[in-house]
């Protein structure tokens, strides 16, 4: 791989507001370790953007910077029009976050989870009550409103988690490995909803190392050792490398290199 950083930007003709996320040379160092190394890219509004990489590639660090939880060492980024350095407190109100693993409290009931999350996003009591009814109806969970979340099937839990992360009507939603381990039908149903969400103008930002999740994204970036080494539409990438799955492309790009773990 050349030492020259690949620079990927969106269509320069688009006004800045067309981008839900735009990063410019975004870098994070922890001591001598560079977790995120001058990444630059843009995500358009309404796009389902896949952020791929192995564990330790720098995905989590990058996401934490986008969410305003970690200040960058250098470079900058805009999320939903806010600067992550100076306006991080506005960012939290405009983004949603869902991870398949940690989102919901298993020992709270379905309704209690919705109320809790509505509460921490500062929604009014009436607003929460209205939203709760609306969500329960959408998910057909009225019968289970007072059941513990732990008792729901995995597919339902995941849809509930997604709904809860959308309670405060964010314009960008970050999904962290949302469908790992889920059965194929639940996964397809889930992604059907994701496409509807994106269709309504919200931006969906998916981080994953599961290639079957990656296949659903409109556009993908592949992160490796803190850098973005490839970005594009899945079809384009498959054509470019003459391979027919993201798995093969990923292995083609990363597998030949000496991996960090093989140097003691």
């Amino acid at each position: 791989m050349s030492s020259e950083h690949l620079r990927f930007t969106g269509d320069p003709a688009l006004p800045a507001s067309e981008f839900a996320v735009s990063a410019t040379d975004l870098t994070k160092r922890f001591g001598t370790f560079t977790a995120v190394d001058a990444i630059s890219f843009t995500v358009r509004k309404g796009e389902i953007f896949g952020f791929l990489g192995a564990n330790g590639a720098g995905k989590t660090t990058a996401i934490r910077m986008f969410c305003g939880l970690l200040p960058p060492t250098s470079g900058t980024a805009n999320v939903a029009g806010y600067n992550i350095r100076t306006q991080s407190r506005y960012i939290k109100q405009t983004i949603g976050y869902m991870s398949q693993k940690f989102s919901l409290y298993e020992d709270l009931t379905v309704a209690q989870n919705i109320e809790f999350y509505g509460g921490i996003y500062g929604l009014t009591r009436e607003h929460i009550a209205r939203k709760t009814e609306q969500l329960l109806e959408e998910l057909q969970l009225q019968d289970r409103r007072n059941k513990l979340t732990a008792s729901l099937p995995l597919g339902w839990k995941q849809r509930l988690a997604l709904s809860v992360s959308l309670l405060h009507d964010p314009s960008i939603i970050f999904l962290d490995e949302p469908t790992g381990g889920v059965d194929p039908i639940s996964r397809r149903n889930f992604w059907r909803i994701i496409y509807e969400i994106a269709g309504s103008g919200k931006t969906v930002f998916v981080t994953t190392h599961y290639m079957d999740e990656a296949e659903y994204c409109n556009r993908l970036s592949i992160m490796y050792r803190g850098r973005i080494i490839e970005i594009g539409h899945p079809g384009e990438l498959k054509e470019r490398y003459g391979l027919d799955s993201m798995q093969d492309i990923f292995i083609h790009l990363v597998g030949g290199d000496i991996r960090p773990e093989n140097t003691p």
Partner: protein
Amino acid sequence: MTPLISVDHFSKSYEEVRAVRDLTFEVNRGELFGLIGPDGAGKTTTMRTLVTLLRPDTGSVTVDGMDVRTRMKDIRAITGYMPQRFSLYPDLSVEQNIRFFADLFAVPREELPARMDRLYRFSRLEAFSRRLAGRLSGGMKQKLALSCTLIHDPVLLVLDEPTTGVDPVSRNEFWEILHELRAQGVTIVVSTPYMDEAMKCDRIVIMHDGASLAQGSPRDLVASMTVPMYALDDRDLVMNFSRIETVPGVRSVQSFGDSLHITSDGDILPERLQSAIGGALGRDVHLRPISPSLEDVFIALIEEGGVHVL
């Protein structure tokens, strides 16, 4: 030759949950056999029963002709088992872990250096022999766990989702190792939720809700799906395909990144379908025939079987 594993009308429940229901399959000697299914399908219960950690409620499970209910010690002696969670000691080094398991399985001391050499060669862990297991990357941890289960030269290897949570490159490498082991004659039973990994097995059983949906070689299973599928490459349509769903002859539509996968109901000719969809959208479209994936087979099986899934 008799099969190494024979599972016959096996059922197992925990309190109210029926984890496995009337499961029957056989694994031949030297085979790489896959248990395929999502979380909660009953894969782990089946594997724990194979290695005598659980007892069947009904039905019989035998390994090399030995009943798992009565021959616990004998089955454990010839089996290597890797649980789903990383189950080695994080505060022991790579080498200390391997030696610990060598002692537990009473590997003859004079053979130990040669065996460790061999394990290090395929796992490429030698350079890290003094590193604490807890400090290894995900892929290396799995290779260490595999090494520990191989130290006593088992006849049967049972691996419960060995690649879940592991990055794609390490997963690929892990499967290469499994193929090497199979070439050496080890019988391997592996579970996975990934359809692409299922394709790498000799034979599979597809599990859902504790029951077997289908069994056979993955290629045969894919070939058995006769419903035609087409891709429609159109970036703008993936967000909104409701107009296509209602076209007669379309059974289901799924968005995949920048293309739509359309399953027809099989009775309609491709040209007719193409013009019908074009008509609905008010412009020309091009349908590209594609072969179904194992996941499509899985979904078709569940839908045919009338199994209720959310």
